[in-house]
């Protein structure tokens, strides 16, 4: 079969077109996500700046709007320093694992009705699976740098992320039970059909556990022990510089976006608005779903910043105690309650 014949087979053209469409979708999502990441850093600096009676970035562009671009250029042209005794292949690999894991979670998130790269049945499990792979980036960065600070950061982080993944997984079980599906699109649809319009109301316990666990999963304050600059200088990425550092940085922010999107899709109704709201204000029904999604997402991200500006940092043993002694029992209790309600209602 010649190449021409191969391409002219019935169906092959459609397939190529399909693949092209998917690739385009992926490119768009990644490009938009990266843009949001860049401006999430700006947003963070402005929000925290104003919370701390200062201005935040003001120099590059009007109100510092071009600051992310300047940062990116700077990081791009900085010298890439690698410790002499580092395990080089692993050292190179670690930030890539972090970023890839973070980015691939974007594949299953429904940004608005019908727009999701891969509408797979186990979407929620996919995110959990991918985020557990993302842990490797942190552990390996900590180990391969051959620095004691990054090593300690890596150890702390692996223990932390593994512990809180349990709590997070369990907190989502309630949502799965209510929606009866692991598919994120269907979870959103199920919420739309639910009287309150979002699961944050009936699943308030699960939502609380999820939010706390999400903070810990993304290593954000007050759970930023792996990178606590006042104890471990910068934790696992202390030896990274230039572009590789930027990859970690981007991975952290994409991780925040993923956790925010997950909170939005699983607890806050995704791209939909509760019915009672649209009944009261019919005009809101015309607002496109993506806007709702972004509004909710940026609210969660703002919450991240707010907490960072407010709370001191936990100690390692307090963190573990919180995870195992409070969050996991709470999540289990939530499952029990949801189960009892579900059985009695049916």
């Amino acid at each position, binding site marked *: 079969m010649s190449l021409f014949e191969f391409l002219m087979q019935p169906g092959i053209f459609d397939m190529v077109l399909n693949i092209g469409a998917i690739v385009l979708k992926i490119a768009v999502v990644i490009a938009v996500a990266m843009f949001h990441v860049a401006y999430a850093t700006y947003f963070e600096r402005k929000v925290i700046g104003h919370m701390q009676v200062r201005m935040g970035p003001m120099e590059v562009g009007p109100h510092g709007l071009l600051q992310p671009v300047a940062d990116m250029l700077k990081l791009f042209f900085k010298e890439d320093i690698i410790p002499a005794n580092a*395990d080089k*292949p*692993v050292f190179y*690999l670690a930030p890539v694992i972090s970023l890839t894991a973070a980015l691939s979670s974007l594949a299953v998130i429904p940004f608005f009705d019908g727009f999701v790269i891969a509408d*797979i*049945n*186990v979407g929620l*499990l*996919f995110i*959990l*699976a*991918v985020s*557990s*792979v993302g*842990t*490797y980036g942190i*552990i*390996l960065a900590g*180990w391969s740098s051959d620095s004691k600070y990054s*090593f300690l950061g*890596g*150890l702390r982080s*692996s*223990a932390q992320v*593994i512990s809180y*993944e349990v709590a997070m*997984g369990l907190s989502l079980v309630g949502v799965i039970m209510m929606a009866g*599906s*692991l598919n994120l699109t269907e979870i959103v649809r199920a919420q739309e059909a639910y009287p309150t319009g979002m699961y944050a109301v009936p699943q308030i316990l699960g939502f609380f556990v999820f939010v706390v666990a999400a903070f810990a999963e993304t290593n954000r304050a007050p759970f930023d022990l792996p990178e606590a600059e006042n104890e471990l200088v910068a934790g696992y990425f202390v030896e990274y510089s230039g572009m590789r550092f930027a990859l970690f940085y981007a991975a952290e922010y994409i991780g925040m976006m993923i956790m925010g999107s997950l909170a939005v899709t699983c607890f806050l109704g995704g791209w939909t608005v509760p019915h009672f709201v649209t009944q009261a204000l019919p005009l809101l029904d015309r607002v496109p779903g993506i806007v709702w999604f972004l509004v909710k997402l940026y609210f969660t991200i703002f919450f991240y910043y707010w907490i960072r500006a407010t709370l001191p940092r936990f100690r390692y043993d307090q963190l573990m105690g919180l995870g195992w002694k409070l969050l996991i029992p709470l999540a289990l209790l939530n499952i029990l309650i949801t189960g009892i309600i579900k059985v009695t209602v049916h």
Partner: protein
Amino acid sequence: MVEWFFGYLAGATILLSILVVLGRNPVHSVLWMLLMFLHVAGLYLLLNAEFLAATQVIVYAGAILVLFLFVVMLLNLKEEMRVRQFTGGWLFRGLIALGIIYVLRKGLEGFRVEFKGPWSIEAVERATHTKALGQVLFTDYILPFEVASLVLLVAIIGAVFLAKKRLRS
């Protein structure tokens, strides 16, 4: 098309397994293992077992292998990498492994799929894999399921007991 996917996944799985076994640096072995698990998860997807694929990644890659990495990182690898890697007579042991393949091949020759259960591909897809698996697991296999949870509990207690330092009196 599916054959190509299978070819790639199978080839990668075998190659990565060999790398795991032959690697000098245990951390690198664990990393090859991670890649291999991801490829096995891909194989499960080819076999329409999406829930198992996710579980494979979450449990194997996310928990078990991290545990390995944790332990490996705590050990002094620089010394470890300098010493002899294989036991004496490893050639002979390699032959044993080949022998296993031979025995399995002989055993497989007579095997035919004669029994077809109720869960055809369509049936699984209709119910979605997770639900189908859940139905079977929580009806016919509820007792093994509970036993498995007991095993895990015992393992947790045992691990804590073993890894705990002896209390200095």
